């Protein structure tokens, strides 16, 4: 009804004080909102830039498992759980290195390690980050992203550790241990395979240039270590070595028994020296030892990818591409519970396995019979083919959605592949896959079960300082808007009370309740729209100017990390504008809700009481 709009708009001008109070609050609110959101936008972009340039790359690949891992432990920090190594790494690396959109690939692994500081004081945990020095150096441009305070970065094939300045200072201040290049650190590692101890030479002391770890505790404790020492400390044993180390060396290095190492008479240092001496006498010369410290292409937990085109859209596109290539979309796989025959083939390698009997318990009599007859076949690959075809028909019959069967197979495959059977039969799986590729042409992928994630996954949400900034800012915004809504509500209520006679008159001469509702809602919305739009325009204006000029970020300040460079250039996004717009509508509607209900309750008889 145009009369409503006419009255509403005229009232906006007629009740100037009310309009000014409500309007200026909405103006300030939206001005701050556009400003704040634009800053947040650009700071989160800055942090993303800082992290992906210095720590994570744009895309990180890890084994597809049921935990959310970051490079700094699990997302929710539940403890010292090690990420499993990536299977079939050689093929995958070859593929990724030849990928046209990928600039550099570098493998890394990370886990908590303990610095052994002597018996009297408690030990000190660091985050050991195993790197391949050659690719890591070019990947992160370490001359720019790392500040080397002492010594140097690791050289290819060299054992050693590059200690963060935080760790070095901590060891000096609290443990009285001076750490310089040329010294050694005694490191302990714990894993499912037992307790390890290694003495690792210090090569350098560094600091990150752009990422600061003030908010996330693990980042400043991160130290670079060579892969060989890392794997030994974490009990990662290579399965693809053509020549496994002699059993005696294995026993010595990977001794599960603590008592052997720490018998009452032998001190830690002596025990380590003992190992070294035994090694020397066992091996006679350094050749086998060199063989041990050979950095091979297998047994890494993560692959970090640096892309040629780093904008958000192309990162997302390449991620999707890779997921498809690895024939797994992590989320859809989880959501749809679709089981890929490849996984079954991996799991169902032996009829002796308990999960095999679980599956066979789900089969029909006829399927069981044909399975039984197939078990008579001596050729293992023929057996797998049989099993796969039987299972496939079974899953098709169940339309691939049988929850119970899915869980049975899925979890057994998880537990078997990841936990109980680290030394799985790669040769057999490769053969199975060849068979399956004939049956299922779409499953042609070099690596199974890879999870392709973006930088924030590897950085862990906790390290993205924006989370903290956002939380603080959202909290402040919520408080501000609660106050704003209360003041607006109060102003509107007073205004409604003042106009009781007018409302009563409208009701008395035939205005329905909903007329009153529309009238007052329209009035508030008109004020919100006019002043909110002005506030947004003012915010946009300020942001545009700041974006042109840039806010300088001094060297070494937290601002530099937020900026991901030397200045912040806040930008206006359509998201900010549209979010602010809808928020404005929300504030308008929400704050006028109670006053409007109050107005609707005014009785027509009030018209008589107008003075």
């Amino acid at each position, binding site marked *: 009804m145009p009369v409503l709009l006419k009255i509403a708009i005229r009232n906006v001008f007629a009740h100037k004080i009310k309009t000014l109070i409500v309007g200026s609050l909405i103006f300030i609110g939206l001005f701050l909102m556009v400003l704040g959101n634009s800053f947040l936008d650009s700071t989160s972009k800055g942090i993303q830039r800082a992290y992906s340039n210095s720590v994570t790359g744009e895309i990180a690949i890890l084994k597809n498992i049921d935990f959310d891992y970051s490079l700094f432990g699990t997302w929710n920090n539940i403890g010292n759980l090690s990420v499993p190594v990536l299977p079939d790494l050689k093929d995958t690396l070859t593929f990724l290195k030849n990928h046209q959109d990928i600039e550099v690939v570098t493998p890394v692994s990370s886990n908590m390690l303990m610095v052994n500081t002597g018996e009297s004081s408690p030990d000190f945990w660091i985050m050991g980050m195993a790197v391949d020095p050659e690719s890591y150096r070019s990947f992160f441009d370490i001359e720019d992203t790392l500040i080397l305070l002492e010594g140097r970065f690791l050289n290819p094939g060299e054992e050693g550790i590059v200690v963060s300045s935080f760790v070095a200072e901590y060891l000096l201040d609290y443990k009285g241990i001076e750490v310089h290049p040329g010294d050694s650190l005694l490191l302990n590692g714990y894993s499912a395979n037992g307790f390890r101890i290694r003495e690792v030479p210090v090569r350098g002391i560094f600091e990150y240039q752009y990422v600061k770890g003030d908010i996330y505790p693990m980042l400043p404790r991160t130290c670079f270590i060579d892969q060989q020492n890392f794997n030994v400390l974490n009990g990662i044993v290579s399965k693809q070595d053509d020549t496994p180390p002699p059993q005696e060396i294995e026993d010595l290095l990977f001794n599960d028994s603590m008592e052997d190492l720490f018998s009452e008479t032998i001190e830690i240092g002596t025990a380590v020296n003992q190992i070294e001496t035994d090694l020397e006498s066992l091996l006679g010369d350094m050749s086998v030892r060199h063989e041990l410290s050979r950095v091979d292409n297998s047994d890494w937990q993560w692959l970090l990818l640096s892309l040629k085109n780093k904008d958000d859209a192309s990162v997302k596109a390449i991620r999707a591409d890779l997921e498809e290539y690895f024939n797994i979309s992590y989320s859809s796989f989880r959501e749809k519970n679709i089981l890929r025959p490849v996984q079954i083939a991996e799991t169902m390698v032996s009829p002796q396995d308990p999960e095999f009997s679980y599956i066979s318990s789900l089969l029909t009599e006829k399927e069981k019979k044909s399975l039984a007859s197939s078990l008579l076949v001596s050729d293992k690959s023929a057996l797998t083919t049989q099993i796969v075809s039987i299972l496939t028909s079974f899953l098709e019959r169940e339309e691939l959605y049988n929850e119970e069967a899915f869980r049975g197979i899925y979890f057994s495959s998880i537990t078997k592949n990841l936990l109980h059977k680290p030394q799985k039969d790669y040769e057999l799986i490769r053969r199975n896959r060849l068979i399956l590729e004939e049956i299922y042409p779409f499953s042609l992928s070099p690596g199974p079960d890879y999870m392709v994630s973006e930088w924030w996954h590897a950085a862990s949400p906790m390290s993205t300082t924006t989370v903290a900034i956002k939380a603080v800012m959202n909290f402040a915004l919520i408080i501000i808007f609660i106050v704003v809504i209360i003041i607006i509500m109060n102003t509107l209520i007073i205004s409604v009370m003042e106009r009781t006679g007018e409302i009563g008159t409208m009701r008395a*001469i*035939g205005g329905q*309740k909903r007329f009153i509702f529309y009238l007052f809602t329209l009035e508030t919305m008109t004020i919100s729209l006019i002043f909110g739009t002005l506030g947004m325009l003012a915010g946009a204006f300020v942001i545009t100017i700041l974006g042109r000029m840039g806010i300088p970020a001094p060297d070494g300040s937290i601002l530099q990390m937020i900026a991901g460079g030397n200045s912040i250039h806040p930008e206006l996004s359509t998201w900010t504008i549209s979010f602010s717009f809808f928020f404005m509508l929300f504030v308008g509607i929400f704050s006028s809700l109670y006053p409007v209900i109050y107005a609707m309750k005014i*009785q*027509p008889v009030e*018209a008589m009481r107008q*003075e």
Partner: protein
Amino acid sequence: MNVIKLEKVKKDYLLGKVTVPALRGVDLNIEMGDFMSIAGPSGSGKTTLLNLIGCIDKSTEGNIIVDGHNINELNDYDLTALRHRTVGFIFQTFNLIPVLNIYENVEFPLLLGKMKQTKKEQNEWINHIIEAVGLSDRKKHRPNELSGGQRQRVAIARALVTQPKIVLADEPTANLDSATSEIIIDLMQKINENEKTTFVFSTHDPMIVNMVSKVIPLHDGLIANPSGV
């Protein structure tokens, strides 16, 4: 024919915990075309009675039949619609909508309901009514630019614009000087004669009492001596 019928109507007001009886059992019939006034001293219940007749308040006891509807049985929506259709109000304080000009104020009640005429017919009708109350040259003015008597005439025009069966006016002359009062009452009398619109006033102004065709004397919430004059 009765437009309005009151049967044993009582109205109590609650003042805190005290019950104030404003009407104590009123029986009243108002016929089509009546030009009448409720008269009585201050506090006798005149306004209360007009509110009940005009369906903007509900009785505590007894039935009120307006244009064939028992208003006790109507919900808020239907009651509002009945008011819109049947009753025109002339408030003592005029109660014009301050942000609308004279023309728009008179037009306003028509916009609250369904349109029964074409836009052109409606405009002509509004202009005709404004002319009838003698304000043709003030159509574009806001209410605060008019004198009390002029505002009262706008209020009359607004009450008449929907062609209601009954027009209620609570002390229509209370805020006017006696000369203006006479002009106003005269105007309503003419409309009553020409359009057969029913008028009910409340007043203690002897001039009105002299001009109306029927007086209902109200005393302490009771009709003392129903009689025509």
